[in-house]
């Protein structure tokens, strides 16, 4: 059986590992924040009000200052200090860049006042921050206040930060971001040391951070923080409000977030995270914190030059290619670079280009972007990756002239797409020789769907193939497959034992997944509980299914029994009428007596007929009798009926009884009421003729072994004794009794005595009463010795 997992549970509520809880750290973090060291016993409402209020006031200013303090990128807009900013390089020239940074940052105070391109600066700042994961999460704590003084102080702080970072950089080029950022973090916290200065940056800080960033901060844990700054604790406590809505920057911002943000929309203090994951949910992707956060939370005002991404040596699986490309992308290929410079531009150029596109700034230069070399990135079909360091300098210019302006009625293209479009048109006949495999091996977007996800989809598909009865569900496929296999066996030579992989569909045993609501035993009715699993039934009928054969048999049995009972009832009612006749007759007036008599007669005849086989025959329907006698009430009925029957019929009934005594005895095991019959039977016996009596005795003895059974049963023994005693009485009283005329009686008695002697005393059932003349009977037939034995037995 081919199954991925247990597939029978519909709800996966209990699956802890599939929930939104990512790892232990997060739980502990929350816990810690709520109850542990992270919790601060402040009035969070006040804090929140204050922070929110401040945020509204200073949001814009904060961002501007942020932008200014970040990169000096603001200056780019004026194009006044392009030279300064463009001297900033990537990691390869880190020390230089850092120095330049300090330079540009020192110019900042003047820039801060220049709020002319305020909006632009804001957007630019955002672009930069988002685009560069190097900034991500680092300077989150560092938002200079709105006032220049605070910005200055923060700048100095940043400068102070920068310097310690500088010597580390050259050595750290090949390393990933993480080790750089973390050592920086504690230093970030330090400057706003005392709470007084710590709080003012708070509101702008909160305004800038999105929820993701906040999460990042929280996830980093308290460990890297040297001290538990009030700022951070407040942030953790209160939760940061969302970033103010983006206006026109959405299209430019290229945040490819393959990892969705955490689901809870409420701050840390609030509703607990949702755990239930329905089956339709794709598997959650494990996130490596640091890397992801750096990439996805680009927020910081970070002065350091970018370090990484140019040659990410092992391609981390979960790094979004888009982000990488954005980082590595150098939109400006006409920048003042020497050709030898790496193709990765800094954020400045990136921001420049993007900004230009946003603002619609007409550029003479921007041609198609310079594609990063490390990846075989093929943005659109037919667009080959340019050779290393190759610049499309001249062609863009040439093409610019006859690149037709994009029409308005074409859909609004992503600017990158526009670029790609033009670029594609130029480099049409490009490299097509590369094989697919080669391409795939360098495709940065490959394996977006993880193995786990593939398995998950396959699992669902397999689940759909589950079948309890494949020949019912998928007859044609089964037959086709069988035929194919047979054909293959025939056609393939026996020597080569190759087996194509076969799909083994899961075969699930049919399990009833019905939900039965709670029922109390012995109570009338059911609880009216309805839930999603158990909707209320319109008609609450319980269906019991049985197989056909069983049902037939059961039905037959029941039918028969019902019939017997019915017959018994009918006869009983008749009998009662007959029995009551006397009373009624006496009481009835003269004129009714005739009618009554008539009725009585018919009743009696009817009764008699009911037992008879045929209307005229005196013989009693044995089967009928036995059937009736199988029911307790039936026995009672017979015992009451016997006196009313005409004597031949009564005799016949008694004969039938004695004939079927073993069966009757067996049926009577439960009821033990055969003895009701003793009296009427004895009355009948006493009216019998000798021949009938003999017959009766013969019947009683019946087949071989019947006598033993008879003796075993109380009623049987009693009946036997009755017969014998009657015979004896006949013999003793009536001299010309015909009992001895034929030898039957003698023989029968002999056999009885034999049987009596042979039967052990224990199995001889004591009779209801012992007729006194038995001994005298036996004395006629047996010798002294046996007589004594019999006597012993009979006592």
């Amino acid at each position, binding site marked *: 059986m081919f199954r991925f997992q247990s597939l029978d549970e519909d709800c996966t509520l209990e699956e802890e590992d599939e929930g939104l809880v990512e790892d232990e750290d997060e739980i502990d973090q929350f816990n810690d924040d709520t109850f542990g060291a992270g919790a601060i016993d402040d009035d969070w409402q006040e804090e929140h009000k204050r922070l929110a209020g401040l945020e509204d006031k200073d949001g814009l200013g904060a961002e501007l200052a942020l932008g200014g303090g970040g990169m000096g990128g603001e200056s780019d807009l004026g194009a006044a200090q392009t030279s300064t900013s463009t001297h900033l390089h990537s990691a390869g020239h880190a020390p230089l860049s850092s120095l330049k940074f300090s330079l540009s940052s020192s110019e900042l105070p003047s820039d801060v006042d220049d709020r002319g391109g305020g909006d632009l600066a804001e957007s630019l700042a955002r672009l930069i921050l988002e685009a560069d994961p190097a900034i991500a999460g680092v300077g989150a704590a560092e938002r200079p206040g709105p006032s220049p003084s605070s910005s200055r102080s923060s700048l100095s702080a940043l400068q102070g930060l920068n310097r310690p970072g500088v010597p580390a950089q050259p050595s750290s080029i090949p390393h990933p971001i993480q080790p750089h950022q973390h050592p920086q973090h504690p230093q970030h916290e330090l400057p706003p040391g005392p709470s007084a200065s710590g709080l003012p940056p708070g509101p702008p800080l909160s305004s800038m951070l999105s929820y993701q960033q906040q999460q990042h901060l929280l996830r980093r844990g308290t460990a890297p923080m040297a001290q538990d700054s009030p700022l951070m604790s407040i942030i953790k406590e209160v939760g940061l409000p969302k970033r103010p809505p983006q206006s026109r920057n959405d299209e430019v911002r290229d945040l490819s977030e393959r990892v969705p943000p955490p689901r809870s929309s409420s701050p840390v203090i609030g509703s607990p995270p949702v755990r239930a994951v329905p089956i339709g949910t794709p598997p959650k992707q494990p996130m490596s914190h640091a890397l992801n956060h750096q990439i996805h939370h680009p927020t910081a005002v970070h002065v350091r030059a970018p370090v990484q991404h140019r040659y990410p040596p092992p391609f981390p699986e979960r790094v979004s290619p888009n982000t990488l490309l954005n980082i590595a992308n150098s939109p400006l290929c006409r920048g003042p670079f020497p050709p030898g410079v790496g193709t990765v531009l800094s954020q400045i150029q990136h921001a420049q280009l993007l900004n230009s596109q946003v603002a619609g700034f007409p550029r003479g230069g921007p041609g198609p972007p310079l594609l990063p070399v490390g990846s075989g990135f093929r943005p659109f079909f037919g667009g080959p990756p340019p050779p290393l360091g190759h610049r499309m300098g001249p062609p863009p210019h040439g093409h610019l002239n006859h690149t037709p302006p*994009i*029409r308005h009625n074409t859909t609004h293209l992503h600017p990158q797409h526009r670029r790609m479009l033009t670029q594609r048109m130029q480099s049409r006949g490009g490299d097509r020789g590369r094989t697919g495999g080669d391409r795939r091996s360098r495709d940065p977007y490959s394996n977006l769907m993880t193995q786990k996800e593939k398995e998950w989809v396959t699992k669902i598909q*397999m689940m759909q193939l589950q079948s309890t009865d494949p020949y019912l569900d998928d007859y044609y496929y089964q037959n086709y497959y069988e035929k194919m296999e047979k054909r293959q066996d025939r056609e393939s030579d026996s020597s080569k034992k190759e087996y194509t992989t076969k799909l083994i569909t899961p075969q699930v045993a049919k399990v009833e997944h019905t939900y039965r609501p709670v029922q109390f035993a012995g109570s009338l009715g059911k609880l009216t509980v309805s839930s999603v699993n158990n909707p209320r039934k319109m008609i609450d009928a319980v269906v019991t299914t049985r197989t056909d054969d069983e049902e037939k048999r059961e039905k037959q049995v029941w039918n028969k029994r019902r019939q017997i009972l019915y017959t018994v009832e009918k006869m009983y009612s008749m009998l009662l009428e007959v029995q009551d006749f006397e009373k009624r007759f006496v009481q009835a007036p003269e004129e009714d007596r005739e009618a009554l008599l008539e009725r009585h007669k018919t009743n009696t005849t009817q009764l008699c007929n009911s037992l008879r086989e045929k209307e005229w025959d005196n013989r009693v329907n044995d089967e009928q009798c036995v059937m009736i006698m199988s029911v307790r009430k039936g026995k009672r009925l017979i015992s009451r009926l016997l006196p009313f029957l005409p004597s031949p019929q009564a005799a016949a009934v008694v004969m039938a009884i004695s004939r079927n005594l073993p069966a009757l005895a067996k049926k009577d095991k439960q009821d033990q009421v055969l003895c009701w019959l003793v009296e009427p039977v004895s009355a009948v016996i006493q009216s019998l003729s000798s021949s009938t009596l003999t017959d009766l005795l013969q019947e009683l003895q019946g087949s071989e072994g019947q006598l033993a059974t008879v003796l075993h049963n109380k009623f049987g023994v009693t009946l036997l004794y009755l017969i014998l005693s009657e015979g004896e009485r006949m013999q003793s009283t009536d001299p010309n009794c015909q009992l001895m005329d034929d030898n039957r009686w003698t023989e029968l008695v002999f056999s009885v005595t034999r049987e009596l002697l042979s039967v052990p005393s224990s199995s001889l059932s004591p009779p209801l009463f012992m007729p006194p003349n038995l001994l005298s009977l036996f004395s006629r037939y047996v010798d002294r010795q046996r007589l004594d034995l019999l006597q012993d037995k009979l006592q």
Partner: protein
Amino acid sequence: MNYVPGTASLIDDIDKKHLVLLRDGRTLIGYLRSIDQFANLVFHQTVERIHVGKKFGDIPRGIFIVRGENVVLLGEIDMDKPCDTVLQQVSIEEILEEQRLQQQAKQETDKVKMQALKDRGLSIPKADNLDEY
């Protein structure tokens, strides 16, 4: 690696260039990046290819998510085979113009046809392509 041998599964088509024809008649070409149990498709670097006569034009569209029910057919594109030998690629503007002209021509003929039918007292009910009621 085929997870379900003997069946057709889209798992093996991932990260390959595909052409998909949608129910509304659009043709998309892109790298199939992700699927799900409903055969919803995620296309990367998608290009919408419009064919008019012997000409075609590509409009880059970026990332597409196609709902499974709207797919008519889906096929892998063989990268090794030479493509577009008969067809001539033109610019987007040109192809859109061509398409517009084609639509216009079709509408004209339809109008004439309807008029002719009306004159003769016949009518062809308009086929209901949409599932919306």
